[in-house]
């Protein structure tokens, strides 16, 4: 294990920023810490770095407990959200700083920086000062500076937060490639789920200081541990039907609920892609009006309004949309391919509560 957190809690006065968090990062992994602002993810990153001290619990780097090891001696590379480049130093001196502090020989420093400048595409910028660089260049200098002393772990706080959307996409791909080339254990913080999904090997999801789920992007998307994760990762329709006579109903929609007591409310969640739409009104059981169409490039998202006023979000490809001859205001029939019963927020989602819907017209399967 490269990094390990064991029951780590961090309090700032009365506020519990991080609550009993445990997870581990394997050597060479690229891990995204994901969560809404104030979720505690940056605090976790700073505790790994040694910029914050846990109130309780242990932080281990390469098997060694580092709670009492100061930030200077943890051998980590940290990239700040603002990049925190030394304004009074040139690019060369910025990257050389860590090496100079560690008393590398001048020739070695020179060689290491040439290597990094090549790797990061910073040729010709060595003499520039931070304020003479573009946002993307600054970020690359910041990462080069953090990597120069060959840290055992690279930590990045919101690495793509400060650049505009177009460059952000390029930087993501670049970070993945960099990680692939260098294979240094990397942990980054982001509040952008799409970014976390695209870049990381595994995602650690936080909200309000609590670890919600750890898993590969596919895993947290397909098998969200709880409602928070389900809602945070991707778009999800969430309904609260009430049980009567073994069937949970909301508006026109019905879900089987054998053995559930009358009056109980279930929480049902399904992804937009699980809604199948047909312009043939006889094909599926439920009817609705297509209210809005949102163009998302190759995919489209549509809003369906049921006669009862219930609104669902569905997703389909452009071709499907054209084939069915859909347009805003058109009446359609639809069914749910798959859905799942969600546990309340935080409560673990046990497999027994997951329902399988077998009879037509609704064909269910495990998500």
């Amino acid at each position, binding site marked *: 294990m490269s990094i390990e957190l064991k029951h780590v809690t961090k309090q700032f006065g009365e506020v519990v920023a991080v609550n009993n968090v445990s997870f581990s990062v394997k050597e060479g992994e690229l891990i995204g810490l994901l969560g809404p602002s104030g979720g505690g993810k940056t605090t976790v990153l700073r505790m790994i*770095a*040694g*910029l914050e001290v846990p109130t309780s619990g242990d932080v281990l780097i390469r098997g060694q407990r580092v709670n009492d090891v100061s*930030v*200077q*001696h943890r051998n*980590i*590379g*940290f990239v*700040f959200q*603002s990049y*925190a*480049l*030394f*304004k*009074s*130093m040139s690019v060369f001196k910025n990257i050389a*700083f*860590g090496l100079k*502090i*560690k008393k590398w020989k001048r020739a070695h420093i020179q060689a290491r920086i040439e290597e990094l400048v090549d790797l990061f*595409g910073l040729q010709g910028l060595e003499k*520039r*000062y931070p*304020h*003479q*660089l*573009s946002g*993307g*260049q600054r970020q690359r200098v910041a990462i080069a*500076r*953090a990597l120069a*002393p060959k840290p055992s772990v690279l930590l990045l706080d919101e690495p793509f937060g400060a650049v505009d959307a177009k*460059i952000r996409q*390029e*930087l993501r*791909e*670049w970070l993945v490639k960099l990680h692939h080339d260098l294979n240094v254990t990397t942990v980054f913080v982001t509040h952008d789920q799409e970014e976390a999904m695209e870049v990381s090997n595994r995602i650690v999801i936080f909200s309000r200081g609590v670890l919600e789920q750890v898993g590969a992007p596919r895993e947290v998307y397909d098998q969200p541990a709880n409602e928070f994760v389900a809602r945070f990762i991707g778009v999800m329709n969430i309904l609260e039907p009430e049980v009567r006579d073994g069937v949970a109903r909301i508006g026109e929609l019905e879900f089987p609920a054998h053995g559930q007591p009358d009056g109980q409310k279930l929480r049902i969640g399904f992804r937009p892609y699980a809604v199948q739409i047909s312009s043939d009104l006889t094909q599926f059981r439920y009817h609705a009006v297509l209210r809005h169409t949102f163009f998302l490039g190759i995919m489209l998202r549509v809003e369906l309004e049921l006669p009862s006023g219930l609104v669902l979000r569905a997703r389909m490809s452009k071709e499907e949309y054209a084939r069915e001859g859909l347009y805003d205001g058109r009446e359609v029939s639809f069914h749910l391919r798959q859905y799942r019963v969600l546990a309340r927020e935080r409560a673990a989602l046990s497999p027994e509560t997951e329902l399988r819907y077998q009879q037509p017209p609704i064909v269910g399967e495990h998500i």
Partner: protein
Amino acid sequence: MAGTPKQRRRQAVQQSQRGAEETPFVKWTLIAAALLFCFVFLLLPLVNVLAQAFYKGAAFYWESLTNHDAWAAIRLTLLVAAVSVPLNVAFGLTAAWAIAKFDFRGKSLLITLIDLPFSVSPVVAGLMFIVLFGLQGFFGPWLDAHDIKIIFAVPGIIIATVFITFPFVARELIPVMQATGTDQEQAALTLGANGLQTFWYVTLPSVKWGLIYGIILCNARAMGEFGAVSVVSGHITGQTETMPLRVEKLYNEYNSAGAFAVASLLALLALLTLIVKTWLEWRQARDFTKAQLLQPTAATGAREGGSELA
């Protein structure tokens, strides 16, 4: 249609400029008023000081500056500045660091206290130290018993000057340090630097200009302070007389040529300070312009995009 497209464009430009600009009359009246004011109240007195100083000839001027007592006053003034400026630099750095980098109870009180010397009359400040360290004062008997002289001696002058020049460095540094934040220091720590290295390589360079500016102002005031120093010095010629005090004494003795000779030297110091300040500002502006010229152009931006994709 009036005129060619080019002419019309020029007209449009002129019209748009007129919108934001004053009429020439207002503009030149304001400039003339400002220049006249500077001439009457700043330049004229300065020229007059020099004229008065040389009123009895260059030999007298030279003698007024090089006689034993004048030389003692010059030396004392330089000594006071040499002690109080470093003290206030140390204090200013500490206070600015504390205020800019930490949150603590009583922070606003500390900021107010730093400004205190600006609001207290220098004479009152001097009297405060008489009350504290004078023979009848709070520490007076104890100091007397240990044969330590503060009031009517050089230590008193230094203490009074330190008090008066207290805010200059801190006041210059606080906004600069607040604007810089702590990110760069934290970055230095993550790269293995200890506290001292962080301060020396990161903090100090980032506040360099504010610090130099503060030192210049502090030094100017330390050399020129009259009120507080006058109260605590005792005016002992050749011992506790600084240049401003000597100017006043000579003037009261109707030796106006001598007074103005010393005054001209003080004015020269002030001028030097201003020149250094202007030069520093010019250098800073030049660095900034150079930086602007080196900003990445569209062409380098495109190239950079390519390398990011690579």
